[in-house]
């Protein structure tokens, strides 16, 4: 598999399938792991970083799950390709800050990815479509066990898996769901919900993780605490709270429909109209409007649109994807024009 092959396929998490996929776009599990032999990446010398890379390479090649996987050295990628991988949620922004001795392994359907020498030696990620935490965890656990067989993890009986940042120690597990909560935003209940979840050991972030804004009413909800609870408890807790959030969003939707239907419909159809007609559009505006159309579909207000197409658009309209689809570099203005063109063409069908 080559990097450009990814452009032709829809990442598994974007397929819009799985339980509650109308509201929960994706479920993600991340495990932070380090190799006992070496200092953590920021403290390791070149030789040690190279050794981490070669130890990992030897290990993954023995694992069935990684047959046909794509293994990339970050330093070999150009700026556009790095951005492209970030947009597909396959690497973090942190991973391209300094690119020497860093790598990423991506499985053929983009479900599994492993960042090597990020903050920790290994960051294993499993990303699936829909509200699917249990399956995602099962798979993460299997991959982790496989790697564990061939690598020597930094682990202590008392503190569990040892990580570079003490906020990840123990299970090294971050479980998260990407969820769209437009009605809670419109009815201004979102702040209350977000405040409540922080009281329960969870946290909410924007579409692209730490420090990013919540464009298009997308929120990434994840556990904060990694020590003192088993993986199953952490996932169970997140799952239960997510169920409640889904219920709250549904209640807000019903109440909006019952009490403010014209206003609601107006917002959705205006979004639809703009997307269908705009000739210049920024990615933020597009994401927000697409999110409204998505809501319109879920409520049966808009009927003739394919959810898969909408999900794909959310990624394709991003800067690096647009440029790769066009096969050339584009200025900000050119991107806004090309983006509008792409969206119009999809909405015309």
């Amino acid at each position, binding site marked *: 598999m080559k990097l450009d092959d990814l452009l032709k396929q829809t990442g598994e998490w974007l397929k819009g399938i799985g339980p509650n996929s109308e509201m929960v776009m994706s479920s993600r599990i991340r495990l932070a792991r380090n190799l006992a032999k070496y200092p953590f990446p*920021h403290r390791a010398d070149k030789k040690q970083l190279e050794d981490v890379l070669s130890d990992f390479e030897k290990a993954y090649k023995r694992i069935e799950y990684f047959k046909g996987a794509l293994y990339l050295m970050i330093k070999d990628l150009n700026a556009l390709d790095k*951005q492209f991988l970030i947009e597909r949620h396959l690497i973090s922004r942190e991973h391209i800050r300094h690119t020497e001795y860093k790598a990423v392994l991506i499985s053929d359907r983009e479900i599994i990815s492993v960042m090597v020498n990020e903050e920790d030696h290994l960051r294993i990620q499993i990303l699936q479509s829909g509200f699917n935490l249990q399956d995602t965890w099962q798979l993460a656990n299997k991959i982790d066990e496989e790697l564990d067989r061939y690598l020597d993890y930094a682990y202590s009986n008392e503190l569990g898996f040892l990580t570079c940042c003490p906020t990840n120690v123990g299970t090294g597990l971050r479980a998260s769901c990407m969820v769209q909560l437009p009605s809670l935003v419109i009815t201004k209940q979102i702040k209350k919900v977000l405040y409540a979840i922080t009281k329960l050991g969870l946290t909410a972030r924007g579409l692209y993780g730490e420090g990013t804004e919540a464009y298009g009413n997308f929120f990434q909800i994840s556990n904060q605490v990694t*020590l*003192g609870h*088993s993986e199953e408890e952490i996932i169970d807790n997140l799952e239960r709270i997510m169920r409640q959030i889904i219920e709250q969003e549904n209640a807000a939707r019903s109440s909006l429909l019952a009490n403010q239907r014209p206003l609601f419909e107006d917002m959705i159809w205006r979004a639809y109209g703009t997307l269908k007609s705009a000739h210049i559009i920024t990615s933020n505006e597009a994401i927000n409007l697409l999110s409204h159309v998505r809501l319109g579909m879920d409520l049966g207000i808009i009927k003739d649109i394919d959810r898969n197409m909408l999900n794909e658009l959310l990624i394709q309209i991003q800067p690096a994807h647009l440029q790769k689809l066009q096969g050339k570099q584009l200025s900000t203005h050119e991107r806004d024009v090309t983006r509008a063109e792409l969206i119009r063409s999809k909405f015309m069908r």
Partner: protein
Amino acid sequence: MLCEICGVNEATVEFTEIVDDEVTQLHLCESCAREKGVEMEKHFGIADLLAGLTDAGLEFESEEAEVKCSGCGMTYDDFRKIGRLGCGECYSTFKRNLLPLLKRIHGSTRHLGKSTVKLEKAAGVTKRSELQELRQKLQRAIEMEEFEEAAKLRDRIRELEKKAKEKE
């Protein structure tokens, strides 16, 4: 010159970054520079936050401040500045200072999750779940302040862990 991050826009901002005494200079466009700025603030945020936690209300074990980790040469002072540990060994080296910090972050200082494949194998599959169960019982006993019971559980856990280690 084009921006070194997006490679698209004209670079108009010179951005100097100092990480671990290493100075990097980047030529960026306005929007990437802005993003980078936000990212930097965020980066500082984590270390600051942790540094705040390490000091707040805790008696700082100063004799440990000078101790260098045998695994990576880091001191606790280094950790307080960057909020990152240097290697797995650091957790034992700075244990006395780290445990209260972990308690603040996680509300616990005891791992209750899965173990490594090798340890599990050594302890036998049944032992593993037994160990896990015992640890959970211990946690509950501590929460309920049943210290006698907790002490018994602790001894049993130590015994099992020792066996697991020996087999390894």
